[in-house]
């Protein structure tokens, strides 16, 4: 099989674009964050329909204005929000497989629904692998975030790969409309008064502007009457209560330990619902 090395040239990008695979497992005891995909649902779907390995690296794109040129033929797949996508200036469907030829341009415009688009590629992007993952993280990979004029390697066979056009699994955007997020009670859940527990599981919460790859803060206040605690293990999906009474939902790049009470733990399958919400959108926790 021909497997030539080629590049995807980043012509333009907003902040927050990064390379992701399933992240780093087994290094947390050295303080290394997981750095998996924020939305495992969209990420896994791309790799599935591209017939990639489950951990093939993709681009995680947070903002419109992204533009990339592929230097050689391949297949790509898009998943996540519905968005205005153009291939060589022609609008194309926002989800699923697209054929890429020499020098093709892909542009991502306005996001209609959701916050993070995944761009998968046949066999995955072949960027630097550090501590068994290509996911970018400061101090671990040389680059943090993908920037304009970066060249990200991938493999090409010098022709568009064959793929069965009829058998593709349909991308479902239902979860992007969903408000309910399933949770487990966290280690400090029992320190809350019954009334506080009830509030947490009934009232709606709104996603604030304070959002990055480490955490998203929610707007509503929960009076914090809990005792101070010593730093303890935390994970992506841990919902902490800050001293100021704000809920902080930890995401894929979060620290491995934290000093705030851990009230809830989001179901792994529901992380995608949370991360795809934009500031101002509503979520509800359900046990």
């Amino acid at each position, binding site marked *: 099989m021909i497997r030539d090395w080629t590049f995807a040239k980043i012509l333009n990008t907003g902040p927050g674009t990064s390379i992701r695979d399933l992240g780093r497992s087994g290094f947390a005891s050295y*303080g290394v964050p997981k750095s998996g995909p924020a939305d495992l649902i969209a990420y896994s779907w791309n790799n599935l329909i591209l017939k990639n390995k489950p951990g093939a690296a993709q681009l995680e794109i947070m903002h419109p204005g992204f533009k990339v040129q592929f230097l050689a033929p391949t297949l790509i797949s898009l998943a996540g929000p519905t968005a205005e996508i153009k291939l060589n200036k022609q609008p194309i469907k926002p989800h699923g497989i697209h054929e890429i030829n020499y020098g093709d341009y892909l542009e991502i415009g306005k996001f209609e629904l959701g916050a993070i688009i995944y761009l998968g590629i046949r066999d995955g992007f072949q960027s630097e692998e*550090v501590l068994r993952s290509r996911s970018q993280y400061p101090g671990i990979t040389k680059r943090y975030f993908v920037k304009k004029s970066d060249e990200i390697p991938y493999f090409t066979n010098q022709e568009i790969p064959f793929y069965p056009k009829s058998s593709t699994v349909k991308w479902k955007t239902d979860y992007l409309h969903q408000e309910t997020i399933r949770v487990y009670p966290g280690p400090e859940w029992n320190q809350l008064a019954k009334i506080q527990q009830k509030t947490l599981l009934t009232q709606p919460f709104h996603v604030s502007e304070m959002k990055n790859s480490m955490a998203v803060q929610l707007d509503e206040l929960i009076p914090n009457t809990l005792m101070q605690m010593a730093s303890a293990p935390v994970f992506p999906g841990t919902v902490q209560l800050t001293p100021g009474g704000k809920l902080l939902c930890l995401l894929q790049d979060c620290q491995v330990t934290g000093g705030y009470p851990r009230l809830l*733990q989001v179901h792994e399958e529901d992380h995608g619902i949370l991360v795809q919400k934009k500031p101002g959108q509503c979520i509800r926790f359900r046990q």
Partner: protein
Amino acid sequence: MVELKPHINQITPNWTELTWPIKMVGKYLAHRIACENWLLSAFEKEIVEIRAGYQSSSIIWSSTPDLPFLKETLARFEVNSTEVECRIWRIPVCYEPAYGKDLHALAKAKRILPEELIHLHSRQSYQLIFYGFLPGFMYLSGLDPLLSQPRKSIPDRVIQAGSVAIGGDQTGIYPMESPGGWHVIGRTPIPFFDPKNNPPVWAKPGDEIRFYAISSSEFEYLETVPTPLAPL
């Protein structure tokens, strides 16, 4: 002797948390580490990773564990068998103003001389409890209570890699450049995290960390000619 049996809490199908009634530092730390090692050997294939805090250890399983069997295994763990290797590492630190930008202000706030602050910081032996906050960031216990100082209300935008700092009742070393609210009292030329190595760190929980003062010219020498660090 405190009852050292951990409370077992199944948080999610894959996350079990062991919680002890006290902070597992000082003479109790070896117990936590031995307990983790015991579980890692008993469930070698089933455990994805263990991450620890002061009072708890979290076990991540590849699939939902058999809780009664886990309890039974923990019960067979001998409290006496807590021999844990402890190595001692001596870390060179330049406390001069070029590297310890907050040292003078901190000494002033503590109403001591900068030399006394350096002495109080470098005469202690610190115990490595766990890694957290940043890759390779050590949670160290043993700071002289005289040096304890609340974090800055407005964190610095950039703290240089290698910075040795004090925050609350802790001291620590920033392994990489990061924003941070701790008071920087010096800097070490020794790298604390190298992603090219596996493991990327050289010390283990339970090890002892000591600091000794070096001049800026020694700092520059060690920075140019990296000298491998060896335990005492």
